[in-house]
């Protein structure tokens, strides 16, 4: 694990207030933590485990099992390339390659300046517009490798 910056635990308190303090809330709490911090900081996970009465090992287990969670800081903008079947046969692979050329990172990696994280996701259910690339919150349907830099430029602005 890379070294983690100090985090504001007050945010965690706010999140914990939204749910009953019991094990079934764990995944919901972690979802909110992931959104608030952009990843799951170690200190937060320990605090969440204590609050919900879930052993640290189980919290870690759940954090690593589900794909929605990241244990390292993520880029400001998350770039998701859908690799569902429809996107696959319509060329999602080329989008990932183009991103590799454009940003120098592969799937599940983050640029050094923490600007972008590239992820491949298994079908976002927008198959009719395949291939789909999501930059921040913005969906790009019928995405073309040649336009990747355009998507990234626009997306970077949109996401903030």
């Amino acid at each position, binding site marked *: 694990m890379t070294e983690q910056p100090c985090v504001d635990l007050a945010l965690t308190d706010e999140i914990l207030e939204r749910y009953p303090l*019991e*094990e*079934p*809330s*764990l*995944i*919901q709490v*972690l*979802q909110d933590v992931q959104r608030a911090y952009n990843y799951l900081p170690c200190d937060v996970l320990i605090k969440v485990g204590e609050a*919900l009465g*879930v052993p640290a090992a*189980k919290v870690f*287990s*759940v954090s690593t*099992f*589900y*794909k*929605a*969670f990241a244990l390292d800081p993520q880029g400001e903008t998350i770039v998701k390339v859908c*690799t*569902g*079947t*429809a*996107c*696959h*046969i*319509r*060329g999602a692979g*080329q989008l990932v*390659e*183009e991103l590799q*050329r454009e940003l120098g990172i592969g799937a599940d990696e983050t640029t050094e300046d923490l600007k972008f994280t590239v992820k491949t*996701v*298994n*079908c*976002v*259910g*927008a*198959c*009719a*517009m*395949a291939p*789909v690339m999501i930059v921040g919150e*913005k*969906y*790009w*349907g019928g995405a073309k*490798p*040649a336009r990747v830099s355009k998507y990234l430029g626009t997306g970077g602005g949109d996401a903030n």
Partner: protein
Amino acid sequence: MRIESRDQFTALHEAARKARAEHRQQILVCCGTGCLASGAKEVAEAFAEQVADRGLDAEVGLFVKSTGCHGFCERGPLVVIQPSGVLYTRVKAKSVAEIIDTTVIGGEVITRLLYKNPVDGERIEDYSEIPFYKNQVRVAMRNIGRIDPTDIEDAIAEGAYSGLARALFELTPDEVLEEVRVSGQRGRGGAGFNTARKWASCKAAPGDRRFVLCNGDEGDPGAFKDRSIMEGDPHSVLEGMIIGAYAVGANEGYIYVRDEYPLAVVNLTIAIAEARKRGLLGDDIMGSGFNFDIKISRGGGAFICGESSALMRSLEGKVGEPRAKYVHSTEKGLYDLPTVLNNVETWAGIGAIIERGGQWFASMGTEKSKGTKAFSLVGKVKNTGLIELPMGTTLRQIIYDIGGGVANDRPFKAVQTGGPSGGCVPEELLDLPVDYEKLTEAGSMMGSGGMIVMDDRTCMVDVARYFLAFLTEESCGKCTPCREGLKQMLHIYDRLIGGDGREGDIEAIERLARGMQLGSLCELGKSAPNPVLSTLRYFRAEYEAHIHDRACPAGICRELTAYEIIEEGCDGCHACFKACPVDAIEGVIKELHVIHQDACISCGACFDVCPTEAIRTLPKSRLEKAEVV
């Protein structure tokens, strides 16, 4: 206002209907995920602004609403004007004023925005005349695209909760169960288990506390019907669940939704809040004395959580690992208590079944598969989108009549159904009527209704490998055959597409596939070999070409495929030059272009953009031989 009796509900229903009828014209803007991505939000806002600014509400009785997915995602943003039924496709915010002036006020149609039939190029005015819509029969999706999913009154006006009112005030729980039994409805999540039998088993299980769950963890790549239902008509899901809870005697419900479906979560959350406010959820529903409430649980991003026992573990806040189901979850499910788990589409159909009767539902479909089924028709087909059809419709009708045929008029090769648990159905089976049994016999399965059309530019070995890679990533890793077997199977496929296939590979694949089918713990592992076995069954020659000839007949597998420009065909348009990501193409405008094989990565970008089809593929092995000579 809380509804405290059936009369109050009926009064609200009538009032809502009347209020809707007063609007002489309606503009329905599709705001499903697909259309939103294409800018539907801006279009809807522009309409609302125009209506407000120009006081059109009073003047022409105009009413604008954002609806759920109309299904025709590829053509979005979609705008339908009622009552004329004019459908405009790919509408931009800047065309809004023109639409209002010309169509709404002027009564004229704007031809440019009409749907153009890809088959004959004809523009079609009326929504219901478009082949994509004409052939559909909508049950689960009955209100999608017609209602504003965030407005419960709009839903009630269109009949939402009428089935619930009938169930609560006219039928006993046993009679509800009987109605569902008569309908013959089977689970829409994939396996096709009889709904009524599932409910009866839960109802019979001992204990006071039981649960009703909705599986909205639509993980099959290529399927998005559940997303559209949750986004476009969340009330149909709630209504179904309340009726189910009433039938089995449950008071607590959960909807498990993929976190990748943010709009579905938002619309469901609004719908639940509205339903509670109206007394349609919570204590003493509609004054009937029946209590039931629903909570939403967002999934963490794991395909395996679509499996029932894994989903229940996930709801418990645990890792989504399946358990053996030798004791059914209807008896020992969530927290080891009796539980009914149905798919989104299953629940969405229940309200209609109770309202219109089980007989009506059973009158559609085939002998063993009753009613209608939603599909997402995607891949290399002209009209992609979401459809609902009676069971028994043939693949040919779906792909050609509704889908308009294969995109770019390329030859049809196969249609993949059932996601990673399904298989590829070849051309010779196009007249197969689609139902649970027929698809299973063909080596595929219904799954969650994804239909991915593949043309001749699809390599079946690559498709099988794609699903293996998907499943390798999604296997929970609990049981040996799935965890280790997928990894090893993927390894063999990597060799196949990498040009390192060996004699005996096909037999090794078959042996391993059999072991996984028989030995795996849950359905993910048991059905994981389906894409492998179905492609082997129908496209064995393609495998053999990869092994014996080191060739990919479809020209997809990069290690085996080279691209070259056909001299006579190239008109020097320079499109390939611009598309090439690695600058492997040389040529100036209006002159013959050439691909440098040493730099080419065989990505196929040039092939896809070439307007004159002057680029062809050939096996790399032939290229190498040529160079040696």
